[in-house]
Each structure stands twice: as C-alpha cells, then as structure tokens.
C-alpha cells in the first residue's frame, strides 16, 4: 500500500505488519498523553514531587535522554568537521535519535514547569547568570538545528523527491550541513555543559557544588565529556537494536567498532577527570563548606557503592573493554560495554538529581525518599513511545542507513 514511499532497493515489512508494530506504541503514547494532560490541566499535584523533591523523575530522565542524544552532535562533528567519513553510515540515524531525544526532553520540560505558558519569559527577562537560561537558549536553538538537519532526510523520501523544488532545497541544505554541524556542536557543547552546571553551581547543596574552572563549575566539563562519550555508544546500541528487530544488517561491523572505540577513548578521559574531580571535592570543596564527604554517604541506600559503581563498574570497566581491539571485535563485549557506559551516565544523572535532593542540609533535616507517581511515569513513557514511533516511521520511509542497500545486495 505504501510501497511508493519506500526507497528503492530497501526491504521493509508489509504495511499490515508495520501497523501492528505501531499499534502498541500508539496506545502507550495515548496513555502518556493522558497522564501529561492531567499534569497540565490539574497541576503538578498529580506528581509525587514536593517542596523538597523539587525535581524528580522527569529532570533525571531528561538529563539522561539529552546525554544519550549527544550522539547526534558528536557524530555530526566527527563526520562534517573532523571528516570521519566512515561514520556517514550512522549520521542519519544519529540525527533522528537526537531529534527524538531533544524534542521529547523539551516536551517533558514543558509539562514539568508550573506555568508552561510563561516559557517565553526566559527569552524576555533572561537572567544571564543562570545555567538554566543557557540551557533553555541552547536547547531551543539546537532543536531548531536538528529539525533543519532532519529536513534533508525527509526530502530524500522517494515521493517527496518527485517535487523539483524539494530536490533543490535539499541540495542547498546539504551545502550548509557543515555549518549546521558546527553550530550544532557549539550549541551542544554549551547546553550539555550547562546541564552539568545546573548542579555544580548549587552552593547550597554541598553534595553537588563543585569548584569553578573559569566561570563554570567542573560538572560543566564533565557533562560535556560524558555525553560525548556515551553518544556514540547509544548510536551503536540503537543500530544493533534496529538490526535485531528488522533482521537486516544496516552498517559494516567496522563502523560499530569505530563507534565503540570513540566511546572508549572519551570515556577513559572522563573517568580520569571524574576521579580527579571527586578527589578535589572530597578534600577541598566539601570541607570548605563545613561538611565531611562521609556525611553524604551515610544514608541508605546511597552508600559509597554508588560512587564506586559510577566510576569503576560503569565507567572504567566499559572504557577498558571498548579500548581493547580484541574485545571490541566481539559483538557481545562491544554491546555490553556500550550498555554499561550508557547506564553509567544515567547513574551519574540520577545521583546529581535525586541523591542531591534527598540529602539533608540542616541539622534538623531528614533524609527523604521519593517515588514517582503513575502520571510522571506515564508522561515519560509517552516520550519513549513518541521516540519509537518517529524512529520507526523514519526508518521505514527514509534512508537512515546509507550502507543498508549495498549490504543487502552482498
């Protein structure tokens, strides 16, 4: 039925089967939209956040999703700026992942704020000293860049190509792709960093507060680095997952290994800097604020194990595996290490968001726990469903993996 929309030479499942695949995700999206609607119309009392847990599941997952979506800017940077042409095999997929991650995160943020209709106030009355202002500006601009980067993919659709003006427009867009990649890298650098800076500047939260390097706290640089490190890993994992679901080989194995190696190199640098940062925090920052680091790890379940897990188990370990060419050649090792790396960054975002807020700061304060409400979970599931739907539609009707046709012919 929709064959005329599918690019020549690509093998896709029947329309009926595709619709069956979309159905559960559409239902999940509808459920999530209902949950988000409750939060928008009845207010944030539908969540389990409170005056102490001012941030919850949404901010934690937003930060994680944005870090994982960093594959878009980083792959773009590698392909268009550093001219690593072999990564062209995944750049289209990376752009779709980035678009999905960023647009999903921004949508959840709109539900997360108490007065979404006042979002434009940040542009009208910006506080240039606030990390959140930087985040808002950069994410909005970068989402626009991603949408523009997505356009050439869309215009390459078999049907749309029949419109001559679209072809010309797509050609023109390709010419500025290097500029867009550069702008995207610049914007991403700042908002990934500002997201880290959000916590690093919190002088009143000694667990999160970090020493400044220039005008930015160290978490600014750690967030940039960790996002760049796991971006390729997430692209790798997504590509593998799509291969498994569709039953087609989509990229050369060497591309997967290259992505793994890139993740490994950046991850080891991140682990090194994160270790130095933790030591400085323990020996200088925290004592300077009148606390001792042990005080923060005396509250179950957030013991020292979480720091060990973050740096060693989900940082150093995957980095070592990804740097070893022999291990990287094994798909099981490669995928496990990439999964560990992604989980490590998610754990870092969890620690920065949830552990920071759970910890007491005053002598009569209590350590508090928080569990998200079904409306919070549902809203985020809507983002997951939306992501799967956009990616599925893009995979079916657009050329996400340029090597797919050649690999099939072989």
């Amino acid at each position, binding site marked *: 039925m929709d064959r005329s929309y599918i690019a020549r030479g690509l093998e896709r499942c029947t329309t009926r089967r595709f619709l069956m695949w979309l159905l559960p995700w559409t239902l999940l999206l509808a459920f999530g939209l209902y949950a988000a609607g409750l939060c928008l119309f009845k207010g*944030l*009392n539908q969540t389990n956040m409170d005056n*102490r847990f*001012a941030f919850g599941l949404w901010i934690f997952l937003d930060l994680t999703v944005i870090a994982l979506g960093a594959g878009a800017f980083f792959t773009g940077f590698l392909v268009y700026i550093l001219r690593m042409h072999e990564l062209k095999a995944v750049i289209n997929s990376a752009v779709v992942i980035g678009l999905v991650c960023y647009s999903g995160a921004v949508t959840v943020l709109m539900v997360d*704020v108490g007065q979404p209709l006042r979002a434009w106030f940040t542009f009208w009355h910006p506080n240039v000293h606030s990390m959140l202002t930087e985040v808002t500006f950069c994410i909005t601009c970068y989402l626009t860049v991603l949408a523009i980067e997505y356009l050439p993919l869309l215009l390459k659709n078999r049907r749309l190509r029949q419109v001559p003006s679209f072809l010309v427009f797509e050609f023109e867009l390709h010419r500025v792709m290097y500029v867009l990649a550069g702008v995207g890298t610049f914007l991403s650098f700042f908002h990934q960093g500002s997201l880290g800076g959000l916590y690093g500047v919190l002088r*009143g*939260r000694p667990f999160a507060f970090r020493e400044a390097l220039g005008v930015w706290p160290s978490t600014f640089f750690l967030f940039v680095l960790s996002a760049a490190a796991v971006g390729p890993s997430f692209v790798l994992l997504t590509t593998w997952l799509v291969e498994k679901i569709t039953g087609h080989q989509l990229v050369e194995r060497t591309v997967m290994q290259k992505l793994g190696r890139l993740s490994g190199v950046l991850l080891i640098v991140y682990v090194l800097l994160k270790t130095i940062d933790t030591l400085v925090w323990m020996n200088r920052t925290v004592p300077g604020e*009148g606390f001792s680091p042990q005080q923060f790890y005396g509250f*179950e379940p957030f013991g020292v194990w979480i720091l060990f897990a973050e740096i060693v188990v989900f940082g150093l370990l995957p980095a070592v595996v990804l740097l070893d060419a022999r291990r990287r050649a094994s798909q099981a090792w490669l995928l496990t290490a990439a999964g560990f790396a992604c989980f490590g960054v998610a754990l870092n975002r969890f620690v920065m968001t949830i552990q920071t807020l759970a910890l007491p700061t*005053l002598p009569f304060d209590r350590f508090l726990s928080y569990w998200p409400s079904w409306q919070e979970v549902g809203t985020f599931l809507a983002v997951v469903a939306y992501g799967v739907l956009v990616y599925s539609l893009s995979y079916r009707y657009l050329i996400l993996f340029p090597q797919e046709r050649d690999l099939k012919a072989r």
Partner: protein
Amino acid sequence: MAANKSARYGMVIDLDRCTGCGACMVACAIENNVPPANAKATERTGITWMRVHRLGNGRPFPDSRAVFFPILCQQCGHHTPCVAVCPQNAVEVDAATGIVDQMPQRCLGCRYCMAACPYHARYFNWWDPAWPAGMEKTLNPDVAPRMRGVVEKCNLCHGRLHRAESKAAAEGRRDIAANDYVPACVEACPAKAITFGDLADDQTEVAQLARSEGAFRLLEKLGTESKVYYRSERPWVHQAVKSGIGKEPQRG
C-alpha cells in the same frame, strides 16, 4: 530607619525563648494570604513561609533536650542561591532593604530556586489557592495571592513595608519609623523570641543581638551572609548546628 538608604533588614531569633507554639506560622499565613492547605497536601507539599522545626540533643531521658527552630527565608545577602539560578529574574535582592524578593507574576515554576535553597524555605503552589466560602473576606488587601504553579517564600512581610513607606510619605518623612515596619511573626510571638530591624544600623537592638555571644547563622560556611540570626546559650545547640547534617543520619 531609612527605606531609601541601604538598609539590611533581618532578625535574631532567640531559640532559648522559642516555645514552638507556632503563633508565628499562623500570623505569617494570615498576613500573607497563604491559603488553607489542600485536603491532599502533606507536610512536604504544604505552604508555610515560616516553619518551626524541632532539634533534639539526641540523648535519652532524663538528659534529653530540645529547641524549636523557626525557619523562614534567610534573606541571603551574598551568593544568594536562589537569585543566581532563576532563569527569568523572578528573584532579586532589593538593594534598598536587603530583602530577597520573589516575583510570582514572573515565575515560571521551574523550581530550580527550590533545589538551590539550602534552608528549604521556598514553597511551590501545587494546587490552586482556595479559601472556604466567606473566608476570602479576611484576605489581606495589601498582599496578592499567588496562583498555582509558582514559587513563593517569606519576604519579611513586604506588604507591611509598603504600608510603612506610604505612611512615612503621607507624613512628609523620607524615613520609616521602626515601629511602623514589624513583620507579622515578630508581632505575634508571645515569648518575644524574635527581634527584627536594620542590621546595617549598629544602634539597633537587632544589630547588637546579632553580634552578641551565642548568636550564629545556619550554614555559615556557605558564605551566603544570611540576615536571619539565631541565638542560644546552650552549647549543644551550637555543636549540633556546627555538625551540619548531624552525626546520626536518620534512615529515609
């Protein structure tokens, strides 16, 4: 007191006098049009610009001792945590009074300021404000109620400050009289545990008390230069405050 000079309004709360009666909390809520708590509100979602906490010495009877700690916005004067983080300048420190002002009409409700505040003195409107029928007639006309989805906090009874300034202007004075500007909590405290005034004026009682032995500020090492001081003659209180988040963590 001069409203047009650089005043630094603040207070000293004598913990040895505070009985924990909560009159300050009630007076604050009535003065500032804080609505009655929603039926579903909890200790963690209710709005109490001033909240009285209990701090014990952690020892068993008969050695057990406790003080009550009224916590309100500490009116930080330096590195003010909430001011720097607000993305749309909805929080500012008034240079003329030193009061940290919250502008609910500009607040996005992102709650970043709440995450930044180490004193947990900021509150979010999780519900639409609602008063039982007839009770809205008791609302203070000098204070605007806040809507759902915005953050609010103590502003040292800004409505009262404006009233005092208006009175001074009507009487042809530039300065406001000390007695004309007294926050509701100070006025309501039956034990006279709260002393309020201009900390920048060395002659005021509050400035002298703030410099007296036994006076301290919470989380002093953070360098926030808060303008709410506490006072106690009891060494264990000082010890407990210095130890930060306590030696024996409570399990969550």
